């Protein structure tokens, strides 16, 4: 567009240079598109088309026991959607997911920040060793983590309850108590906060030291400096971490599947929404209804993210001035 407009305005002043310039620009555009192509093809093949297809499947009663072909399934209109409203398991499993999220998000906000403050402290000896060891559990595979936490949270022989006993507290039965199974899973997830810690650490290190020096000259103490400089300066990163935590919490379920099995034991207390979806799709092979469940989750996550961004725009301070 821009090129043709230019051409009509200034007719043939230095045609060779202009030609070459646009040819070079064209050439670079081609290279750019070439480099972009893996993502774009992947976006279409592995994300956009499948979502459209999930939408299509939600109007069918396709069951994965048969090969996917016309004639092996019927169109059932909106009956999968009607089923959403009469399915009590949806509310239950959403409740489990929300309970987990309500614990996971504040924990994921505060604990990694405290760790980052600790390993960023100039008073800490050998901060690199601390950083490495705090990150270590993050690289531990979830299956191994589940094995370890089954042991360490064991109500009789586990070390957590042993430690609580020293302080005179009778520890709960954690993974076998419906009340405590979700907090136990939260503890397991809390073990893998290395990424969040590093993101906070990067943010803390990018706060200009002059700000702290100026505040100290003005007589601000450590606590005031933290709340009036550190927190506002890193608020975009706090916001980013909250969004990530919410999304991750809504996608959490593998550890629950490993510990509680497909029934969400004990007593359905770990039947996460995603576990319920997995059961419908890959245990009961009810792909039509499972697609509807997937779309519901998609819509919920979209609404949540939009709300978060609405709220976030107002409460985040951008030092650069741009929103």
């Amino acid at each position, binding site marked *: 567009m821009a090129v043709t407009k230019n051409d009509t305005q200034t007719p043939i002043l230095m045609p060779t240079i202009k030609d070459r310039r646009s040819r070079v620009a064209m050439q670079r555009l081609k290279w750019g598109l070439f480099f972009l192509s893996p993502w774009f093809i992947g976006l279409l093949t592995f994300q956009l088309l499948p979502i459209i297809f*999930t939408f299509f499947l939600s109007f069918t009663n396709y069951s994965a026991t048969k090969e996917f072909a016309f004639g092996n399934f019927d169109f059932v209109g909106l009956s999968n959607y009607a089923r959403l409203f009469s399915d009590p398991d949806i509310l239950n499993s959403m409740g489990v997911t929300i309970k987990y999220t309500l614990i996971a998000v504040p924990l994921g906000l505060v604990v990694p920040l405290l760790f980052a403050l600790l390993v960023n402290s*100039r008073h800490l000896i050998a901060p690199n060793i601390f950083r490495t060891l705090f990150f270590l559990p993050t690289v*531990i*595979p979830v299956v191994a983590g*589940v094995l370890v936490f089954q042991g360490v949270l064991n109500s009789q022989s586990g070390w957590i309850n042993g430690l609580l006993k020293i302080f005179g507290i009778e520890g709960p039965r954690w993974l076998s108590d419906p009340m405590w199974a979700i907090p136990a899973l939260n503890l397991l997830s809390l073990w893998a906060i290395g990424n969040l810690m590093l993101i906070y650490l990067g943010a803390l290190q990018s706060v200009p030291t002059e700000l702290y020096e100026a505040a100290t000259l003005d007589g601000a103490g450590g606590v005031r400096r933290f709340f009036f400089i550190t927190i506002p300066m890193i608020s975009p990163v706090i916001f980013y971490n909250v969004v990530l935590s919410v999304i991750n919490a809504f996608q959490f379920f593998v550890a629950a599947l490993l510990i509680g099995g497909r029934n969400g034991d004990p007593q359905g207390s770990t039947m996460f929404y995603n576990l319920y979806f997995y059961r419908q799709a890959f245990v009961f092979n009810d792909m039509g209804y499972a697609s509807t469940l997937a779309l519901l989750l998609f819509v919920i996550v979209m609404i949540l993210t939009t709300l978060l961004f609405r709220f976030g725009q107002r409460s985040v301070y951008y030092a650069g001035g741009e929103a």
Partner: protein
Amino acid sequence: MATVKEVRVRRSVAPRFELRRMKRRNILPTILVSLVGFLIMLLFLLPLGYMLTLAFKPEEQLSAQNAPLWPAKAVTYNYEGKDLPLYNVPTADGVKQWALVKGYREDADFIDPSNVNNGVFNWKGRYRVLDPVYTFAPVFDNFTAAWNEVNFPLLFRNTFVIAVISTIGTLISCIMVAYAFARFKIPGKNFLFILLISTIVLPPQATIIPLFIAFAKIGWAGTWLPLLVPAFFANAYDVFLLRQYFMGIPKELDEAAEVDGANPLRTLVWVIVPQAIPAITAVTLFHFFYTWNDYFNPLVYLVGKEDLYPISVGIAKFVSTYGSHPTRAMATAVLTMILPAILFFLAQRQFMQGVVSTGVEK
């Protein structure tokens, strides 16, 4: 451009600041902060301690009374051809280590190994409440038991092949895409970038059913292809991290290369990539760990194909047998995490640098 220069300047000044800080450093806060940090670290790594001690314990030790927390063996003393257990017996001149010859309800016959000539003597007291003498004695039985129960060499090989191939795919594709976003004028680039970032929010559940059906349709179900091929088409997290890092590399470098006649591909390979080693290390490790960790995708796509299982799915059965063989389960956990842990320790310096310096600085 200006921001890049500013950052560089600030970094070069940093060591001097550090020096000034060092001088100002008081000894009391240092001790206090380090002590608190150390306690938090102990608590945080408590599960690892539990895992390691249990993995090296003989299974009998779990049911033994008064056994220590660490892997240990009860010490015995051979007296007249019999192995007698040693006990810590409190006496008037301190705790003595005596071997139990015969125990009764309210008294017991002991022999003192350091004074055998004294012969067997009687001691008044309940021997059952005495602490047995233990020495540190880790055993490897749990590892051999776990090793024999599942085919670890096969699981390791499978996981390794899957992880290496998909990491290579991720690296190639994400570096390309990040380069496109960092350096090229593409119409609608901002919109595309927002689109890329918003795919982070997309729940995998929304796409897995059609993908499962499609992969089955083209005969890829029960093979590694569904786990490998998508990796070659980039992902939002890694592209974002790489792009942030690429943006910090001075543009003059690639302009110089292009003046010398290098095409963008050569510039990418010979200028950008060598400058971005920390970020590339971070992405490599992130993806390698992700694949090593991934349980859901292999579970869905490799159903029933036990000879193709990666380690995550292969050892999942230990979770349900934990109750009967806790020590073996812990040995399995050690075997599962040992490779990622070693890799992480080897590359941690580069890794931390790559993640922290790109971070989400914006």
